[in-house]
């Protein structure tokens, strides 16, 4: 099962994912995918540097499932909610698209 590394941006707290080019993206589909433990460790090392650079906080790796159509499923409800960048996952009066 592939993994991605997620965090919150320091200056605004928004959920982000480590991208292959070492930048941080809000889009989980664009996140770098680690296929092995070594690859997870490499992503974590890059993320640790970003913590030192004060770009992100609260870093951790998490498993994902890639669907046939390319969609990324973060598996846990919690991570699905984080990846959606919105609350309640229902049509709502205050939902503001990012």
């Amino acid at each position: 099962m592939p993994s991605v590394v997620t965090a919150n941006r320091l200056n605004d707290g928004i959920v982000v994912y480590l991208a292959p080019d070492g930048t941080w993206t809000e889009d989980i589909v664009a996140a770098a995918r680690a296929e092995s433990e070594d690859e997870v460790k490499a992503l974590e090392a890059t993320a640790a540097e970003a913590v030192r650079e004060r770009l992100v906080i609260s870093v951790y790796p998490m498993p994902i499932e890639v669907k046939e159509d390319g969609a990324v499923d973060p598996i846990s409800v919690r991570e699905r909610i984080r990846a959606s960048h919105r609350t309640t996952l229902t049509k709502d009066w205050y939902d503001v698209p990012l």
Partner: protein
Amino acid sequence: MYRYDEFDHAFVNERVAEFRDQVARRLTGELSEEEFRPLRLRNGLYLQLHAYMLRIAIPYGQLSPRQLRQLGMIGRKWDRGYGHFTTRQNLQFNWIKLVDVPDVLAALADVEMHCIQTSGNCVRNVTSDPYAAAANDELEDPRVWCEILRQWSTLHPEFNWLPRKFKIAVSGAAEDRAATAFHDIGLRIVRGPDGENGFRVLVGGGMGRTPYVGQVIREFLPKEHLLSYVDSILRVYNLLGRRDNLYKARIKILVNALGIDKFREAVETDWEATNKDAVDLPEDEIRRIASYFAPPDLPERAPRDEALAARRESDSGFAIWYRNNVLAHRVPGYASVVISLKEPGRTPGDASSDTMDLVADLAERFGHNEIRTNYTQNLVLPHVALADIPALYDVLAEAGLAVGNNEMLGDMICCPGLDYCNLANARSIPIAKEIAKRFEDPERQAEIGKLRVNMSGCINACGHHHSGNIGILGVDKRGTELYQITLGGSPKDDAAVGTIIGPGFRAEKVPEVIDTIVDTYVENRQEGESFLETWRRVGAAPFKEALYGAR
């Protein structure tokens, strides 16, 4: 209401400047996250699931129109145009940027507000009766004592690093509308043996993973000794409370480990040894603070308003709203009005910036410039002339805020749950919305009668599920959200912790489960019986049978 003096203004402004400096040092790297975290928490700033959350203190739930309008402005300028009123009568903004927080705190200081001690192991916002100085069953205004406690506990040098957080509630009325029995200290103003008022003091109540109803530590405490006695309770807790285990650190664990008699003995011994004059407020100072809480000058009005009576006859929507959301006032010709934030389909307790502006306007137009927040996550205009109520209702109805479900099934308490909260295990908001949809018909709710349904998305119980007549607790069971149901809880004078009725249910089943419980109550109740009365008479068996019988 209380107004800041020069000292208060200077103190809050210094804190804003201090935090501005701390944020700057965090952003330049002088402070690590480990160093910064306790500093931001002391200023009410959490990192939640999606973003930073800022918790703003609303002391004993009291707001002026100017303050509420400023909160609306903050929501619009620095958040996403809405905020969430909490079960501690506070307001939370869910999408605040760290870089903006110093400006937000400065905007709060402009209207005599702050976020100090809305987090951390210290005395939190003191909560109270939202109908203070309006209710007709009130013995004495509790806000005076809340304000005294607020000033005493703010940055108290001895009690700023307690074993765990500490929550106090004060009620001055015959009916407990502040859930005092579920607080670390619950204070009830009562009449003493010589006819003077004092406090019945409860200690060790609380929710969370180990719920307890508070126990009486002192039947009667003369009012003038409030601070010295509370001081002694906190000192004993501070010395003996556990610091080795987060889950056993609250005062309720200590009180129940020692037993109330031993705990009382320790407190009384400390109190006897206390130089009370050094801690208790001089009478002049109590009088000075009380003077801020003089009730508004309400012009004389006729006790009955004919136009209002006619509207109740002719407009059934108005009649339902009036029956549930308009409460008796101690001054004839006046009432307290609940503005429900529980419209079906909306997140319980959320209010948009536009709503905040509107309610501020209404408080100026009809409400003698006072607004209260209720721990049940609604807003209250405590002083409204009966003659103004139809016009007030029309404005609320136009804005979708004339929701007549106060204290009914639709008036659910609901924590933010997994949609926002880092601690949550399960969602609560979508479940509340689905339940609200199922019971949308006000006629059905009227048939059911008053019913408190409370829901939490984790065992920390911010949604007060333990004290719900029906409580819903979201848990995570091997990656699936599961909902445990408790029955028979009460936050009132007959305070009780609900009983788990059986195995949990999946999210999509919960509205049907609530329906089954409600039907079982309605089938079993005798004339005029409340849910609790029926539950206490018939016990769990019929509810279990209805929920699990077919299994």
